[in-house]
Each structure stands twice: as structure tokens, then as C-alpha cells.
């Protein structure tokens, strides 16, 4: 242990000029950023747990409609249909799930960079090697999800549900808005990676950077599964 550490610490001194952080000796052998992203995700769990709990605490407590799953008739006799559109949101959920799959393929593509293609590789094997393709697809699917959300939000507002309408409106828009903001950050992150890939090319040495983005992306995806189940599916 000691000799390994000494070697690594020597390496830190000698190898400081390559501009990368990989060479730093670390206790666990993992990069600092990998540890930090896990801590960050732990913290984010509490953030979404608080948001989701609030939604559930206020579920059914709104004094006026529109309501998520039931019809509401206001004092003037105006009828508000149950506002959640589960088929549409199921589609957007599917899109987000597929983006996670694309993210896995993007990471794999970065890991396989520079390795020769096996002889007689088909289109799929070749496609698998394109990190640009999969980063692009992930970002695109993420953007599509955001498009669904924008459609959902505007149609809710048209139907009479805003942030201010009732407890449901406040908790729903805030919770899903927070999630949407996370997806937006993820899409921007993916697009930055794509841009770097196009300009200087990602290599297997950059695996970690893509890996961290992937962890974040999968986390955001998992949170959506929780939101979709608890808010949309369970009445």
C-alpha cells in the first residue's frame, strides 16, 4: 500500500504537465469528480424527495380546480376536465427512457474509440462506435422531452391551471419545473460534450467526463420515473 502510494505521489509530481487531473493519486483510485457527482446526486435525492413529498402532502387539498384526476365544476358552472393527459405523458416518459439508452451507447462509443472495427462489421456495429451520434440522439431525446413538457404546461395554462390557481398548480408546476430545469441542464451538458467531440474529438481518456454526465442523466431519468408513477399514474 505504502509503496503504491509513494509511486502515485511521485507520479503526481512528475506528471503535472499534461494538464489532466487523472494523474493525481487518489485514495480510492477514483477521480475526485466521480466522488463529487455521487455526493451531489445524494443531495439531489433529498431535493426531489422534498418536492415530491410536498406534492403528495397537498394532494387532494386544493380548494378549487382544475384537479389532476377528477372533474371540477366551478361556481359559475364551468366544467374543468381532469387535467393530466396520461397518454401524452407516457409518450414523453418513453422518450426520456430511450434517451437513457442512447446515453449508455454514447458512453460505450467513447470507451471504444480508437479500437479497430472487427472485420465485416455491420451498420449497427459501426453506428455503435459513433459517440457523436449517440450524444446527439441523447440530447435530441432530452429536448423532445422538454418539448412535451412545454406543450403540457401551455395546454394546462390554457385549460385554466397556473402556478397561482391552487395548491395542485403550485406543487405540480414547481416539481415538474424543477425536473425540467434539470433536463435542460443535462441537454446543455450533452451539447457541450457533442461540441467538444466535434471540435477536438473525445477519446477513451475522456471516459470519465462522459461517465459523469451519464450518471447525472440517468439520475434525472430515474427521478422522472418516480414523478410519473406518483403524480400521473397513482390517482
Amino acid at each position: 500500500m505504502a509503496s503504491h502510494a509513494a509511486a502515485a505521489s511521485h507520479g503526481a509530481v512528475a506528471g503535472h504537465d499534461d494538464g489532466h487531473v487523472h494523474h493525481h493519486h487518489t485514495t480510492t483510485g477514483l477521480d475526485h469528480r466521480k466522488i463529487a457527482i455521487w455526493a451531489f446526486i445524494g443531495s439531489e435525492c433529498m431535493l426531489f424527495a422534498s418536492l415530491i413529498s410536498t406534492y403528495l402532502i397537498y394532494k387532494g387539498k386544493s380548494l378549487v380546480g382544475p384537479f389532476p384526476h377528477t372533474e371540477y365544476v366551478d361556481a359559475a358552472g364551468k366544467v374543468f376536465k381532469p387535467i393530466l393527459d396520461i397518454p401524452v405523458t407516457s409518450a414523453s416518459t418513453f422518450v426520456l427512457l430511450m434517451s437513457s439508452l442512447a446515453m449508455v451507447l454514447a458512453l460505450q462509443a467513447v470507451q471504444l474509440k480508437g479500437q479497430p472495427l472487427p472485420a465485416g462489421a455491420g451498420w449497427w456495429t459501426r453506428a455503435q462506435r459513433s459517440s457523436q451520434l449517440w450524444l446527439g440522439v441523447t440530447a435530441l431525446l432530452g429536448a423532445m422531452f422538454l418539448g412535451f413538457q412545454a406543450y403540457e404546461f401551455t395546454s394546462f395554462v390554457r385549460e385554466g391551471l397556473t402556478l397561482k390557481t391552487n395548491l395542485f398548480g403550485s406543487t405540480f408546476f414547481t416539481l415538474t419545473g424543477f425536473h425540467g430545469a434539470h433536463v435542460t441542464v443535462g441537454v446543455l451538458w450533452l451539447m457541450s460534450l457533442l461540441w467538444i467531440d466535434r471540435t477536438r474529438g473525445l477519446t477513451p481518456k475522456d471516459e470519465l467526463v462522459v461517465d459523469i454526465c451519464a450518471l447525472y442523466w440517468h439520475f434525472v431519468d430515474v427521478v422522472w420515473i418516480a414523478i410519473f408513477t406518483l403524480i400521473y399514474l397513482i390517482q
Partner: protein
Amino acid sequence: MATLATPTPAAVAGSDAKSGLWSWLATTDHKRIGTLYLWTALAFFLIGGLEAVMIRTQLARPNMGFVSAETYNQLFTMHGTTMVFLAVMPLSAAFFNFLIPLQIGARDVAFPRLNAFSYWVYLFGGILITLPILFQAAPDGGWFGYAPLSTPAYSGVAPGSSELKMNMDFWVAGLQVLGVSSLAAAFNFITTIINMRAPGMTLMRMPMFTWMSFVVQFLLILAFPPITVALVFLMMDRVFGTTFYQVAAGADPLLWQHLFWVFGHPEVYILILPAFGLVSEVLPTFSKKPLFGYNVMVYSGIMIGFLGFGVWAHHMFSVGMGAVADSIFSLMTMLIAIPTGVKIFNWIATMWSGEIRFTVPMKFAIALIAMFTIGGISGVMHSSPPADLQQTDTYFVVAHFHYVLFGGSIMGIFAGIYFYYPKITGRFLDERLGNAHFWLNFIGMNLTFFPMHFSGLLGMPRRIYTYDAGQGWDLFNLLATYGTYLLVVATAVFVWNFVRSRTRGAVAGGDPWHAATLEWSIPSPPPEYNFAKIPTIGSRYPLWDLKEPTWNADPSGHAVPSDPSDLQEETASHTAKALGIPMPYPTAKPLFTAIGLVVMFGGLLLFRDHHAVGLAILLTGAAMLIGGLYAWLTSPLE
């Protein structure tokens, strides 16, 4: 994303500028950032103290007119907010910054620039929340900011007015900003402790301060999100008219209380565990003995942190949660007393059979044991809900948590300041002035807070700006006020000592106290790279292994003695450059980014009353934040 930067030519570490304003604005050195935290937090400690003096002056006698009701309410809100978020937490952060890398044998924290960012965000957040008091517009809803008092319906400039007072806006925005600072720092320290320990520094060989800090970082990352959510809701209610706490929309005010205390109770341990860590360094050193029951001390710290998340509703026994919930939270709270009691007994056992030197830090550490015990016992009294119903929201509770936070946290932090001042500055704090400070502080504290037990049990509610004559509280209030004035004298002595000793204190060597842990193996103050050679660690007390092998005769014989050649104190001063050690570049990008963040929140505050101006400022801040972050992430660290 730092790795994505274009590779740069061999970077020679460190800045050549060792002094001057720029060297501080652009520093990424954890020791300098720690020093900034220390000075800033002490300044806020004085401000919070001044607020306390005004509070106590108003309460010295019944029906006093020293300050108005509105001013008083701002004072007690700001006293609590300042002491919790701007003084005690950052004082702990000063020690996290300065000590954690030194104690684990690292050259810096994992993310030096993020560390600078945390400090600047703290500073600006502190200013944002404090400055309004000069304009009589400080937050006035209590440090707990209970809804619905903090909602728009009850924040009008006049009853029924739709124009809102801004007081609580500063609080809501300021606490969110401070949360960013705490979270960023916590991610940083978790990574540092997990990933930057010197070879041989296993988790169970870490110094106790680092261990307690480690627990605290987890509390921070898990406790701050709930209050952030609570604050976001409140801010949206105030700025965008959402309904989270709006009673007219059927909101449940207890939502705020639950979210607040899910944060608020772990926060108590965030405030106390670093102090526990500090005295766990001081007591063995001045008893010439290893810490008694190291493993149990670690486990009890973890246990306290863990249980700390299951007891929040004991702050809410009077809200009517029902007998079952009251019972569960009561029992959970009593459970916490067990690991806490173990710590007390283990500290005493650490001194038992030792050779106790009564230095100033040791006196503060012993005082922590004596005083925290009182706060702990009164804490058990509140854990019983029926008894708590007679105690909560009275001065008895005020007495309780001041014994915990003043008798515990502040005593521990002072122990830490006297203990580590020589390491930070290279000079001792004056022992005579230190003794005067200690005794004045000790007596002043008891005179201030002990009488509050009586006034509380004799029916005096908290947070009242005045009280009528003839209620049986006069004597206790007068004593408490005298005690506060004594604390003013004590603090003045301390400030004088602190400032004076920087240039005139006796010179301290690398290991002035004959302590056992790594930070004492290097010169005082430490060179920018900390360790010329990263040491290899063989036990919990490497310096004792080296210098005083009999002090740490580990009966189990498992510990491998540290390699003496690793721990030779540097005598000649070398620059990092000369030693070829890469150091982070100094950079003001974190400072710039922090300014962006605060400008953003400033814009958000203006948005309600001035949409266009507010939005413009908000976007400017966001642009600064994103631009600063981009420049920061795409430039190499070292």
C-alpha cells in the same frame, strides 16, 4: 470538465504574489480561504453579539423603551440567523478548510476553486442578509421564518396592503445563497476526505476532527435540500404569487415547519459536531493520552448524525400532531442522548490517568464538557412532550440551546482557535489575556443563560420585545443582561488578543503543543504546499510514534509506526516552484461567478416591484454566473 481544457505547457505552481489584496481575492489556497472564513465569521460573530446586547438591554427591565417592537423583532431574527448561518457554521468551515487537508496529509482540497467560490458566496450572502438592518428593513420573521407570518398576506407595509415589506425577502434570498455555499463546500470536503488521504491514513486512523467534519458534510448535503425547497416555495409565494403557504388557498402551515425542521434539527448537529471534533483534538494533547475509545467516538458521531434526521418534529410538540407521533419523536429524541452521553464520558476518561496541562484551549475544552452537559440534560427534559409543552417557546428553551450552542459550539470553537492559532499564524495567542477571556466568558455565559431557565419555567415566553412589571421575571432578566455585558468585556479581550498576537505573540514552532496528528508535523504557518513530501501514516498518532513512543503504546499492537523520515518538520522554507510541486493557479473566476450568483438573487428580489429592472439584473447575474463558470471550467487548475 477541467480535463477538457487544452493542455497547457508545464505550469509552475502557485502565485508569486504572496500578499496584497489580489492575492486574497484570487486565492485558491485552502489555508488562506480558511483564514478568510475565520475573519469573516468572527466579524459576523461580533455583529450577532451586538444584536444580542441590544436585545438584552431592551429586556433588562420591564416595559423598557430602548428599541421599538419592530426593531426588536429584526434584532432577534438577525441574532439567530447571524449566529447560526453567518458565525458558527462558517467558524466551523474555517476549521474544515484549514485543517482537513492538513490532518489527512493532502496538499489542498479536491476542488480548490470551488472552495474559493464557497467562501465568496458565503460572504456576499451574509452581506445580503445583514445589510438591510442598517435601513431598519432587516428580516423580522424569526430565524425559523414560520409561515404564514412570512407569506405575502402578512408582509404588507400596512394591514391589507398589497405592497409588501421586503424584510423577509432578504432572508429568503440570503439563506438560499448561503445554502449554495454550504452545499458546494460539503461536496468538496466529502471528496477531499474520501479521496485525498495520505497513504496509510485509513478511515479509522483519521483524526477525530476530520471524522466529525466528515459526518457534518453528509448532514449538510442531506439537510440543506429540504430547506432550499422550503425557501424556494416561500420565495415563489412572495414573488410569483404561488399558493404553497397561502392560507386562503387551503395551505397547511405545518408544511413549512416540517421542511424547516427536517433541516433544522440536523443543523444543530452541524453546529455542534465540529466543536466536538475540536475538543477531541485538544483533550488528548493536553492529557498526554490517546483519545479514549476512538472507535466508539466515531460510531457515536455517526449515530448522532443518523438519528438527527429522525427527530425533527420534537420542535413541534405543541402543534398537535397527535399522541402517536408525539410518542415516536419523543423516544427517538431520547435515543440521541445515548451516543451524546457516551462522548461526554469518553472525554472524561481521556483525561483520566493523564497529565493534564491547563492551557487556555484545554480550559475551553473542559468547559465544553461541563456546559454542554447542562444543555444536554435540559434537552432530555424537552424530549418529554408533556413537559415540553410547559417549556417550549419559553426562556427555558432559550437557556437550553444557548448551553448547547454557546456552552458547546462556541466553547469548542474557542478551544480550537486557541489551539490552532499558532498553526495558522505561527504565533501563540497571549496566555494571560486568554485566561482572562476564558474566565470572563465562562462566568458571563452562565450569568447570561442560567437565569433564563428560571424565567422560562416561571412563565416568560420567548421572542417578546417587552414584558410587564410584577411577573416575577425582573431579577432573572437583569442578571442575564449583566451577564451579556460581561460577555462583551470577554469578547473585547479576545479580539484584542487575536489582533495583537498576530504580530506580537510568542513565536510557535511547528509542534508547539506536542500534539499527535499530521498538521503539527509541518511548519507554522504551513507552506503553501503543506507537505514537501506526502507522509505515509502508520497509526492514529503519527507524531507521538515518532517523538514520544510511550504516549501511544497501542496495546493491540496493530498500528504500524509511521515512517520517521516522512514526518521531519521542514525547517528551510522552499517554494512550491523550487520543490516542483504543482499548485492551483490563483484565479478570481470563482469570485466573479459568486458575484453573478448574488446579483441574480438581487434581481429576483427587485422583480416583484420592478419587473423590467429586476429581470435585467437577474439576467445580468445569470450571464455573469454562466460566463464565470464557463471560463472557470475551461481553464486548467494548476
